[in-house]
């Protein structure tokens, strides 16, 4: 395997695609490579290719979660979501750009079952054990998106600038389809460069997990208030970060037998997040 370190975004984009993958903090990609879940001929190290740092509402994709969680310019929901993600060691390596591309923790997928998300026919989780899995968007694949910051960015209405376009975080994600099992709309050689995160009047991130710290969200709820409008972004409930307008949207959840509890947690957390704003 080859490791390249292009000097700028343009060179990085040229080096991507055709079996090469982008490497930022490596906290998710390296274990995936080690376990043989993804393969790459070339790794394209982004250290010199994407901006890093926070300037008002603009956040470089190479900014680490550790940098975000302590910066007062960053809205509370995003700071809290970063602070609650992973462990300090991982947060000081992991970048916000990489975090948006974080892969699911679905055991079947990580154990390389020939599941639908891997291009196969069936979702093993639906018939098997699925306590950690989805309650929305789970018709084809019941995996749950694990990113805390992505849920916060969704609630905050953040926008993403890539090397070729600008789109909202809501547009960045889409449920995988039979044609493309990816959860983002980006091209294989497309690079996330920067985020623009509007400042809300108030925001918060609440996260239910299996222990007090250092665990993936069972359900994470980000809430952001802009004037009299409140937006919610949920982690751990769908194959992608999931936006809801209110707790009433949970009436439309499609939980599996083992994930019904998540509907109740989400409902309670939305109410608590709303009253915290």
């Amino acid at each position, binding site marked *: 395997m080859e490791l390249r370190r292009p000097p700028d975004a343009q060179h990085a984009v040229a080096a991507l695609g055709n079996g090469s993958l982008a490497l930022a903090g490596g906290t998710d990609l390296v274990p995936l490579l080690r*376990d043989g879940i993804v393969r790459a001929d070339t790794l394209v190290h982004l250290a010199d290719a994407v901006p890093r740092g926070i300037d008002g509402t603009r956040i470089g994709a190479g900014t680490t979660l550790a940098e975000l969680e302590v910066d007062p310019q960053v809205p509370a929901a995003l700071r*809290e979501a970063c*602070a*609650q993600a992973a462990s300090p060691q991982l947060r000081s390596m992991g970048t916000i750009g990489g975090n948006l591309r974080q892969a699911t*923790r679905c*055991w*079947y997928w990580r*154990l390389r079952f020939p599941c639908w998300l891997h291009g196969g026919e069936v979702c*093993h989780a639906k018939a*098997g*054990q699925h*306590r950690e899995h989805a309650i929305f968007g789970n018709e084809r694949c019941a995996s749950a998106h694990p990113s805390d910051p992505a849920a916060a960015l969704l609630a905050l209405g953040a926008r993403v600038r890539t090397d070729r376009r600008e789109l909202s975080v809501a547009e960045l994600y889409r449920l995988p389809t039979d044609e493309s099992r990816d959860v983002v709309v980006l091209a294989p050689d497309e690079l996330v460069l920067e985020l623009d995160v509007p400042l809300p009047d108030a925001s*918060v*991130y*609440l*996260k*239910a*997990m*299996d*222990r*007090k*710290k*250092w*665990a*993936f*969200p*069972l359900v*994470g709820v980000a809430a952001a208030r802009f004037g009299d409008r409140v937006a919610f972004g949920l982690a751990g409930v769908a194959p992608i970060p999931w936006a809801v307008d209110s707790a009433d949207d949970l009436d439309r959840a499609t939980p599996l037998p*083992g994930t*019904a*509890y998540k509907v*109740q*947690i989400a409902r*309670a*957390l939305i109410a*608590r997040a709303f009253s*915290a704003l």
Partner: protein
Amino acid sequence: MTVPAEKLRLGRVGESARRTDAVPKVTGEFAYSSDAYAAGMLWGRTVRSPHAHARIRSIDVSEALAMPGVHAVLTHEDVPGEKRYGLEFRDQPVLAFDRVRYFGEPVVVVAAEHPEQARRAADRVRIEYEPLEPIVDPERATEQEPLHPDRPTMGHGYRDDPRPNVVRSLVIRRGDPDARGDVSVSGVYELGIQDQAFLGPESGLAVPDGEGGVDVYVATQWLHVDRDQVAPCLGLRPEQVRIHLAGVGGAFGGREDLSMQIHGALLALHTNRPVKIVYDRQESFVGHIHRHPAKIWAEHRATRDGKLVCIRVRILLDGGAYASSSTAVTSNAASFACGPYAVENALVESTCVYTNNPPCGAMRGFGAVQSCFAHEAQMDKLAAALRIDPIELRLRNALAPGDSLPTGQRITGTLPVADVIRRCAELPVPEAEELPRDPIRLPGGAGNTTRGEGVRRGVGFAVGFKNIGYSEGFDDYCTARVRLLADGSAEVHCAAAEVGQGVANVILQTARTELDTDDLVLAPATTSSVGSAGSASASRMTWMAAGAVREACRAALAERERTGGEVDVERVYRHPRTTPFDPETGQVTGERAHVAYACAAMRVVAEVDVELGLTRVVWIGTAQDVGRAVNPQAVEGQIEGGTAQGLGLALMEEVQTRGGLITNASFTDYLVPTTLDMPPVESVLVEDPEPDAPYGVKGVGEPPTVVSTAAILSALRDATGRELTRVPVSFDEVVGLD
């Protein structure tokens, strides 16, 4: 002006002495087995079965052998001696032949210059499998094709159970099992698979001696039993295999069985080079046995005033693919099924079955953890049914010296059950904390999920007990050797494995006490300079090592008195003899089947956010029967660590399997409690010296693990009003109560 400093006096028996390994472990200077290094060493790698059950059609190593840096690729055909090994029964292939019986079973081993070369070569070993239907449901295992048609555990004095796939079954019958009381409560309880989750994965270094023998430096729990398993498989005499203890990063029972020992030695002898093997975390999850998952059906009958009349319990343990120490776990689960209570009538059936799930064996608490979870849930249920205070109910039934257990064994030593209950119940329970609080001090922790909404508080209580030492007629002994040198210094040899429990200090404190000097050293633990110490298991090592070292010290002093010169003596210490259970009635056939018992009581305050199902254990108070504390600070450490392990089982720890495959083999997905999940533990050491033991000591490592899972569940039930019959507790049972 200077004042001559007082001579440093190191700890004697009964004093809190700083552990010799404490500072190096904290500063990162401690050498663990994975740090071992030898010039010119190769790296070993194990090729493992991806199937829970399959026939091996063919193995082709040619491509792997041709890979760069590769020195050896070995299969079962290269095992020169016995093809099978086992801790108690020789049922496990060194390298699989014909078929594999569990996910991760070793099939081929590779040695290469670099670990990455070994890994790549391992990927090129071509094994053709014919997958077979795995047996994964323990309740149906006895109706299916036998995994071990030769029934390796039968014919060892156990009950002859004709059903297929029974590792062992034991029935204890006492009095009239149909005796009826005024009230009866029953329940069904389940426990998931717990992992030892030691921080140091399996690792070791095998070094050929150039004369056909081999030295193995490894993290293990019992050096001599390792040697006695390794040597026959290599076709060597025992003295040609020398096992040396390398730095152990935790054990908890998970290092009783062999891991890399035979594989490393095979590769080293084959290549004539030192070979190092280090498992990664994922491999470690399949590289050792786990705590038996269990299903327990229990019925308790009592009089209206709360006196137990009859207890009926059925226990089903899933032993996984190989026997390991399952036969002893089966009998332990049965021995402690009724709890530390006096009851005249009992029927206990305990069965362990083979399946294609991960093999299970020894883990801290060893059968008693599973039983305690069930009997204490039952006692709470009985207290509720009788409207008697649960602590009072336990006191009314507490076992005492002189009483007989359901096995017929009379308690001849100390067992202060009522005392630990009272001392624990006297500990003041902390007041509920004011709101608002830091989220870390609320259920949900750093997730910031509540400011007090939905939070209910509960207080729980549990009592449990367990045996100390090996049981059922096992010839359990410990050897120590003491050299008194001409310069007045002394050297102590004992192969007791320091696994983090503090036995090195026990040995040193004993020797300092007996020889009345600080000028002594503890030699490295090895099979080459001293006889067997037995296993660092069954809460036995303190008792046994103290016994052996004390005898050797006293003999050495007597010898020096007689000869006047340097002396070198070795002594073997044995605890009182035990005898087997009657295979048909489960009754003792001599004075005792277990050597001695230790008990503990624990009180827990917990908070539950009943809307979210999130918990916080607020406070734990415990009183433990320790016989006599050799090193009180170390005993408190054992109590806190053992409690944390039980808290993990109560709240989060479970090895998940699908069709026999482990699905969460990482510390990312298998969660163990952090310090934030652990509350402060207030411990009372109840010192009631054991008459048969040196200095009156008892083991202390297991009782806290036995009771803490049960005590935490008791508190969660009090907070939620739910039955909570399975651990780890699942959200479904708690969430959305409002």
